[in-house]
Each structure stands twice: as C-alpha cells, then as structure tokens.
C-alpha cells in the first residue's frame, strides 16, 4: 500500500514538475520549437518534385517541355535564376517576376493560354502547375544571395513604382504595406513582421516565398502571399502577375540584396 501511495505521489509530483517546467518556457520559445520541428519533412518538397516533373515533361498544344525556358540567365539555366527575379526581359520588353515568366514560357514554348492562369483559381489547374514549377525553380537557388539587376531603366522605374505602392494607403482601414511592414520589431498577434523597406535578413520576407503554409496545407508563391496581404488589408484584389505585384517584387527584392534565400520555406 505504502509503496503504491509513494509511487502515485511521485508520479503526481513528476507531472507537476513537468508542467511547471513547461510553463516556464516562454510562448515565443515554444512556438519556435514547434516551427523547428516542422522544418524536417517540409511538404514543400512534394511540390518541388511535382515542379521538376512539369519542367521536363512535354505538355500543351505544342507538346514541348519547359527546358528551353529563359528565366533571365539564358535558355534552360535554372540555378541562380530565382535570386535575380524580377528583372527585365528583352523578348517581352517587360520587367517580369518568376510566376509571370513561367506563364510566358508556358505560352510561347507549350502553347498554354496565359488566361488559364491569370483567370484561374489558387491551387487548381494550370495556376497550381505554376506554383509547383515556381517552387522547384526557386529551390534550385536555395541559400544563394538575392542580387536583382537594376541596370535597365525599366527595372529602376519598377523599383520606384513598388515603393509608391508600398506606402499607398487605401481600403476601408487605410492600410498600406508599410502599416505592417514599415518598421523593425513589430508583430501582428504573435506573428513577427519583417521590415520590408530594407534587408530584413536571410530567409525572411522576400527570401521566404514560395513557402508551405501548415495552417491551411497550401503551397504559396509570392503572388499568392501578396494577394492575401491585400485581402487582409481590406484592400482591392490585384490581378495575377499584374504590374503592381511585379513592382512590389522589385522593391522588396532590391531591398533584400545580399539576403540568402531559404526557399522553399515552411510557415505556420
């Protein structure tokens, strides 16, 4: 009897001790630990695999692969391309980001209509394919440093346009990007917010998308991230790969010069 009671008491004490120790870990520490556990086995890898398959597979009305797609460093050169986007392309005479450039290649090389992506839905059809492709392409530049070119006048103008858009308040709440991302050390609820008016560090902000979002089990590219930011801001919806979204990419990417890409990342 006594031994049993002692054992029970010890077990109860053990539980109390554990719960006290657990409570002493701060909220942010516990969340960081959870986030670290998520890194191993990032489902983004599944999208990477799918993206690689789509790059090499002959598809579309022209029955061709994307292996000749020029992402800014020459036809078929993938490694290093992500950390130099968005940039100017002579063949379209436009500044383009990763998603819009993939749409261009799918159109010119494979004959897939861009409207299928631009008017499509997140996670479905050709738009989902662009997401998988973007994940794979970006993953080939993992740990490389952002170094967007600003040699072409259009690239410089795009930077200025992005800056204007970044500080433009609108919508019912008069929020701009800067409302959340204009200062150091801020957070929304318990989610840290990178300051995007400058380099926020390796693997953060522009250097962290495409990423897998655990909370909704979805793979998000920067286009998707911008879309949902604007939604939360009570702002208008931007068109997929519209000029403002590309300009914002230039603004953030140039500000992040030197930051290492962590893509594909994992988020809450």
């Amino acid at each position, binding site marked *: 009897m006594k031994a049993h009671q002692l054992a029970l008491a010890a077990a109860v004490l053990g539980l109390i001790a554990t719960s006290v120790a657990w409570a002493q870990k701060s*909220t942010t520490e516990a969340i960081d630990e959870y986030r670290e556990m998520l890194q191993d086995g990032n489902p983004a890898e599944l999208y990477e695999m799918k993206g690689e398959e789509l790059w090499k597979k002959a598809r579309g009305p022209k029955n061709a692969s994307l292996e000749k797609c020029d992402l800014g460093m020459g036809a078929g050169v993938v490694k290093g391309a992500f950390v130099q986007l968005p940039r100017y392309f002579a063949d*379209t*005479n*436009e*500044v*383009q980001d990763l998603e*819009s450039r993939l*749409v*261009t290649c799918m*159109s*010119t090389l494979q004959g897939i209509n*861009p*409207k299928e992506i*631009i008017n499509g839905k997140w996670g479905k059809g050709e738009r989902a394919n662009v997401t998988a492709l973007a994940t794979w392409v970006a993953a080939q530049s993992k740990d490389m440093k952002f170094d967007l070119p600003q040699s072409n*006048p*259009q690239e410089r*103008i*795009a930077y*200025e*346009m992005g*800056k*204007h*858009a970044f*500080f*433009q*308040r*609108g*919508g*019912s*709440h*008069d929020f*701009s990007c*800067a*409302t*959340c991302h*204009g200062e*150091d*050390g*801020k*957070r*929304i*609820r*318990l989610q840290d*917010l990178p*300051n995007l*008016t400058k380099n926020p560090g390796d693997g953060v902000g522009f250097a962290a998308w495409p990423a897998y979002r655990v909370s909704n089990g979805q793979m998000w590219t920067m286009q998707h991230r911008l879309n949902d930011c604007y*939604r*939360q801001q*009570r*702002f*208008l*919806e*931007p*068109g997929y*790969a*519209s*000029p*403002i*979204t590309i*300009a914002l990419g230039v603004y953030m990417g140039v500000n992040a010069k030197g930051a290492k890409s962590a893509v594909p990342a994992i988020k809450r």
Partner: protein
Amino acid sequence: MKKSTALTATFAVIAVATLAGCAGSNGASTPSTAELDAMAQKMVQQSFHDKGIVKVKEALAADETLRDCDAAAVAGHTIDAATEKKLEAANFKTIQWPANGKYLGDWKSGEKIAQSGRGRTWNDKADSANGGNCYNCHQISKEEISYGTIGPSLYHYARLKGVTDPNSPEAGDRQIHLGQDLERQGLQRLLQHAARRHQGHPHAGAGGRHRRAAARPEIPGQSVDRHHDPTPSGPGRDG
C-alpha cells in the same frame, strides 16, 4: 511572338514616354517625383479590380490626408508640423461622439469586438458582423497574450491618461483628450466601424470617406504614438 494580354508592357510604355520627355537632357533620365506619382497611380488603376464588397472607386479614393501622408512616407520623412496640425483639425471635426454622452459601455462586448478580425474583406458579405481587429495590433487585457505590437499597448489606457472616472461629468475635459488621442492615433474610424456595427447599423462606414480620423504617418523612425516595448511601462508617451 504572342504576349500574354494581361501582362501588358506597362513599364515599357511608361519608361519610353518618360525618357522621350527627357530626351535632350544628358543622362538625366530619372523622372520627377510628380511624374513617378502619376505613373504609380496609373499602374495602380491598371492592377486592381472590384471584388466582392471592395470597390476600386472607394478603396482608392484619396483625400488630402492620405495624399500628404503617403507622399511623406515615400519621400522618407515626416510631414511638417503645420500640415500635421491642419490634417488633425480637419479630421477631428468629423468625429461623431456618442449621442447619449456615455463614454463607458459594456466591456464584455468590447472584448468580443476587439478579438474579432472579421469583415470588410472582399470575401465578406456587406451585412456581416464586423470585428474591431484590435488585438492584431494592440495589447488590451492582461489575460490575452496573443496580441500584436504594431500599435501601442492599450492596457491601463484610462489610467495612463489620468482619467479616474470616464463616466463622470468632471472628466468631461479628459474625455475630450481621450477622444483626441484616439483620433490622433487613427483609431476613431476603426472604433466607429466597430461601434456602429454593434449598434446594429447596417454596412457601417465604407462609403463614409468624409468621416475619417487623422492617419498616422507611417514613417520608419517616427515614433509619434507607439511603444517598441510590448509590455506597458511608464507614463503614456502618446499624443
């Protein structure tokens, strides 16, 4: 070569027009601030569209307050003191004080409104119960640890302002100061939305562009009314 129609050569058109305008000036191809402004506005109009309850005409309607504050933010400095006073005064006039003169309501309802971030997005319905969105940016009660730090902590707010009894007639002056602080922090508009929704007014405020609180200048480095330390400490530094 077939170009995707939606990815129009916007940057190209704008760049060519601007550079052509500057033809003759040697190397001075950087457009002026005014030109960049005009370009940006054009680009914004081209990139966004109506969706759900959010309409381009309302969402992008800029008034003097927004224009001045945004311009300063882009330029990387604060707005000058004179302009700030002028904008504050103009917006202060638009505040609607409680008709029954009561400044202290049911805190339980208030907490519910503060916790809710629902409503007013392009996914929401016009008649949905909109939340105040407060905890996204502020600490308010001690119990709620999931709070943001975009805005200052509002814990012990009345005490920090020296208001001992918000409902007393003697606190009348202080009530006005409370109101001024709220207005200056750009809160009045949000509170009006939340309050009107709670009182059962349908579709509060989206059309009320003329009723607006002074927008906070969102300039990095300008700490007009925000704490960097999320825990409340010391006297309020606001206003």
